[in-house]
């Protein structure tokens, strides 16, 4: 049998991008069914390839796999250099999975500019896979920045009433952050003797003050993306204005690019600075977990509430990463993947309601369980997963991170574990006001329960949430070798003379 592995990553990147171009070429909305069908076909194909990638992935090694390396811009030694390890590989599968969900979710809801909508999501899929598999920093940077464009369009075209403000806020916020990252890359290029390879950066010795500066340059890019407190304020606005599909991709995948950046860049490239500044990262993470949870509690807009809940959950990711233990980092990565499923599902649930009543205000609902019992059951499962219930994926990451935090400093764990109370409080209080109670108004009385298309994508996510909650080991096994290697790297010193 022919060995596809040598091209696998290129296929995963370019198949959706080219597919997106083809969808774009189908033209206006008279050909919408064709655009949808192609988009679905392409997204399923990409997902199958991503599963094949997982199937061929070797667990025991921390080396990059499926490596593709070609010269690109010789003058600056910029390469087309791809590869994945146990840290990045799960995100490829997640991205491919979520994209199918988004295509199905937008199937009937999006009726204007269908081809462009579907194309935007396919293209952003390819670009995000590019981000997770790029091993050349300039290539990474290009994919990284390029993802902004489709997302800017998704929010700006298919978004809500205040979409332009949100889109520009999102764009500028994240662009400003990433420019400093580019500066850091150029500095590292010189230090690494004329290479943009990320793996070369990992080996490059750096003085402490340089490490600190580079750390903060990366921090500016990644902290905004995660987003970490206090640079999180773009996210609630972007989510509220984005169409459902946009929110799903944003929460499920794009935020993870930031945390992935910390793992791929900050920790191995500036290990001494990372150790020096761990208190800072842990502090911001704990603030995110506690403070943002309190803010989430008082939101009146469902999407805003889930957006704040996302920030709080991402606090666990950054907390876990900067504990520098295998359990913390693996917990953080698991939390990212799980949050991909759960936040995606939560936004889709709000989308299901929004499609029917065109309101995101909690106060406009009440007693939805009377008219939409099947929906209420799904929403219950995802709400409980969001509250970190054992047996769902939401538990695994929080559990590992809390346990790992306790081993570093029990007080970190005490603060982090407040999520058990606050996470349940804001999620269930929202659920109570929206779903329980008597039918609140005529609109709720006229609600129709889920159609089979909605049952399909919610079931897929429900299955993912439960399977990963009951048996996370297969996913954990993928990461062991790479995470152990990262833990080793971050304990090394890169300061010359030591």
């Amino acid at each position: 049998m022919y060995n596809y592995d040598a091209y696998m990553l290129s296929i995963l990147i370019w198949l959706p991008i080219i597919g997106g171009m083809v969808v774009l070429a189908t033209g206006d909305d008279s050909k919408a069914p064709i655009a949808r069908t192609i988009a679905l076909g392409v997204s399923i194909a990409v997902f199958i390839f991503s599963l094949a990638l997982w199937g061929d992935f070797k667990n025991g090694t921390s080396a990059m796999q499926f490596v593709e390396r070609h010269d690109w811009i010789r003058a600056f030694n910029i390469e087309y250099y791809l590869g994945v390890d146990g840290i990045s590989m799960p995100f490829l599968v997640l991205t491919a999975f979520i994209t199918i969900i988004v295509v199905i979710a937008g199937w009937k809801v999006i009726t204007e500019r269908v081809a462009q909508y579907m194309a935007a999501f396919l293209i952003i899929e390819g670009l995000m896979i590019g981000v997770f598999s790029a091993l050349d920093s300039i290539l990474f940077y290009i994919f990284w920045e390029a993802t902004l464009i489709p997302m800017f369009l998704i929010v700006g075209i298919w978004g809500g009433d205040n979409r332009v403000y949100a889109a520009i806020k999102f764009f500028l916020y994240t662009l400003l952050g990433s420019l400093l990252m580019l500066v850091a890359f150029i500095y590292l290029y010189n230090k690494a003797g004329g290479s943009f390879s990320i793996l070369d950066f990992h080996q490059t010795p750096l003085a402490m003050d340089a490490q600190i500066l580079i750390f903060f340059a990366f921090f500016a890019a990644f902290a905004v993306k995660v987003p970490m407190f206090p640079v999180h304020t773009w996210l609630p606005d972007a989510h509220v204005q984005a169409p459902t599909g946009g929110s799903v991709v944003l929460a499920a995948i794009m935020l993870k690019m930031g945390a992935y950046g910390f793992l791929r860049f900050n920790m191995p490239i500036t290990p001494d600075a990372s150790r020096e500044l761990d208190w800072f990262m842990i502090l911001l993470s704990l603030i995110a977990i506690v403070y943002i949870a309190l803010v989430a509690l008082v939101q009146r807009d469902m999407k805003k509430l889930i957006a704040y809940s996302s920030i709080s959950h991402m606090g666990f990711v950054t907390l876990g990463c900067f504990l520098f233990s295998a359990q913390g980092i693996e917990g953080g990565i698991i939390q990212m993947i799980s949050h991909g499923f759960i936040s995606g599902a939560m936004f889709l649930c709000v989308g299901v309601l929004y499609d029917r009543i065109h309101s995101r205000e909690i106060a406009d609902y009440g007693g939805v369980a009377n008219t939409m019992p099947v929906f209420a059951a799904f929403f219950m499962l995802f709400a409980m997963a969001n509250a970190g219930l054992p047996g769902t994926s939401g538990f695994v990451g929080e559990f590992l991170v809390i346990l790992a935090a306790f081993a570093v400093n029990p007080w970190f764990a005490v603060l982090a574990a407040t999520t058990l109370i606050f996470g349940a409080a804001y999620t269930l209080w929202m659920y109570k006001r929206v779903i329980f109670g008597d039918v609140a108004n005529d609109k709720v009385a006229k609600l129709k329960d889920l159609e089979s298309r909605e049952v399909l994508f919610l079931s897929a996510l429900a299955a993912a949430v439960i399977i990963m909650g009951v048996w996370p080991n297969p996913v954990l096994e993928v990461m062991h070798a790479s995470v152990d290697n990262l833990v080793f790297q971050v304990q090394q010193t890169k300061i010359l003379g030591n």
Partner: protein
Amino acid sequence: MKGIYLAIPLIPLAAAVIAGIFGKAIGRTGAHTVTILGVAASFVLSCMVYADVREGLYFNGDVYTWGISGDWKFSVGFLIDSLSSMMMVVVTFVSLMVHIYTIGYMHEDPGYQRFFSYISLFTFAMLMLVMSNNFMQLFFGWEAVGVVSYLLIGFWFKKPTAIFANMKAFLVNRVGDFGFLLGIAGVIYIFGSLDYAEVFKAAPGKADMTAEWAWDAKWMTVIALLLFVGAMGKSAQVPLHVWLPDSMEGPTPISALIHAATMVTAGIFMVARMSPIFELSETALSVVMVIGAITALFMGLIGLVQNDIKRVVAYSTLSQLGYMTVALGASAYAAGVFHLFTHAFFKALLFLGAGSVIIAMHHEQDMRKMGGLRALMPVTYITGLIGSLALAGIPPFAGFFSKDAIIEAVHHSELAGSGFAYFCVLAGVVITAFYSFRLLFMTFHGRNRADEHTRSHLHESPLVVTIPLILLAIPSVVVGFMYFEPMLFGDYFKDAIHVLPEHDTLSRFGEIYGGATGTELIWKAITHGFVALPLYLALLGIFLAWLFYIKKPELPGKVSKMFGPVQSILEKKYGFDEFNQAVFAGGAVGLGKLLWSKFDAGLIDGVLVNGTAKSVGWISSIVRNVQSGYVYQYAFAMIIGLVALMSWMLFRT
């Protein structure tokens, strides 16, 4: 063998899934048939396992590896020993009774299939909890029963009080779980494992380790107290008891199953299971004992002033859970578990009896509108009387043996706080007897105070209701003397419960029987009951209830006038609810609003983000004036610039 262990929890799970997802297709009969058969199968298998364990066939093994991270391994597995096998039988038996009873109780409800699905799911979760061989799975079951409890309290989701109560129950339990999870984190940090056997084996070696972060307390004290916070949530100990009375908003069958017989005793089970850890910390044991004593006495007192039939039973449950907790604190784990065991039967019986009355009264729960039901509902009355006698601790009913053991064990305890606890459990006896018989007299004796319409329809409940009552009444009589010797003085729990010799209050209690066994022991226990104080306290309570509610019904009014302030404190339940609502709920929401408006929207977005944008805009609005497009302005600027440049060059030299 492993197959049977797996089947016991998985059969109810499968039944729950079938009834839940295909409820419409299989209909009402289908739903109750599949779930009842499922839990019945579970019960039969549990009995088989129990018999095996009595023969010495234990099991401790993993089913699968849940996850590995670093050097930590997390598994799902079973520990089948005397403690878990006993719990399995109790859980599946009470669950089976409640399943059957539900056919009668819920037959008019539109959510019939959903209800059966939930209670089967509960059975699964509870079995996973008690069968676990490690802390993680215990936590899994722990939270899962919490969720089902949440779903069932809010079963009538249109009722505002029900959906308030279920959220409250979940959140208060989460406060407990917060401690529990930190306790688990402490366990894995100190022991590197969450497996019971490994942890318990290593525990004595870690007895003297101190935790710097916790003001140099002993690690075992820290871990035990954190775990106990979890137990306080689930087993409703003061101050985390506030959710249990409100949980009565749910349908009565689940009050019996979840909020009396099984789930709420999970905390007791947990502490008993963790005895090798608790034994290493006298501080923790004292805390456990004092908290239990407070709960036993002060929650019982509230029970005196309740008029809702279910709430009386609920406060009695709180008080009895307090008794069990006191026993744990006195290191009489076996007595605590024994009381859990007997209480499961008679309290489920009392709740289902109350439910039977509620059905007959057309969902009226106020005892002031009942009375005289004795003749109309003989089965409910007789079984209710048996339950009340058991609860009050009258020999030879089940509660007598277990409660007496607790009181005697506390009496023999030498830990700090044992004097206070002894007073509380003794005073509690009068109160228990009083409110139990107050309930019985107000409901079944005296004049019927129901309205004409209700009275004309009053009749005994159908067989699906009365048969479970009878089947629960039997163990409420017999399990006391049947298990008194083996559970308390035999080697029944030797494999599961570990007591240090210096804490062994139960064997000190046993000494008064001078090594008697068999019927001789039972006889001695009963005669000892007649010479000891508790029985007379119980009889005093019954007498007072008779005096107040049968002999002189005008007395309660007079007494409550005399003790007006006390009465109002009790009716306000010491103000816990108001305090929590104002301080914790109000505080969190207030703080959230403050942080959001002042910090997120005000400082970060208002000043920093939009402020940056505004200042850029402001600067450019000034700079923009330069680009006016008027040639004369440009020319003028050029001339000024030229002049300035030339002057600078001239004056430089």
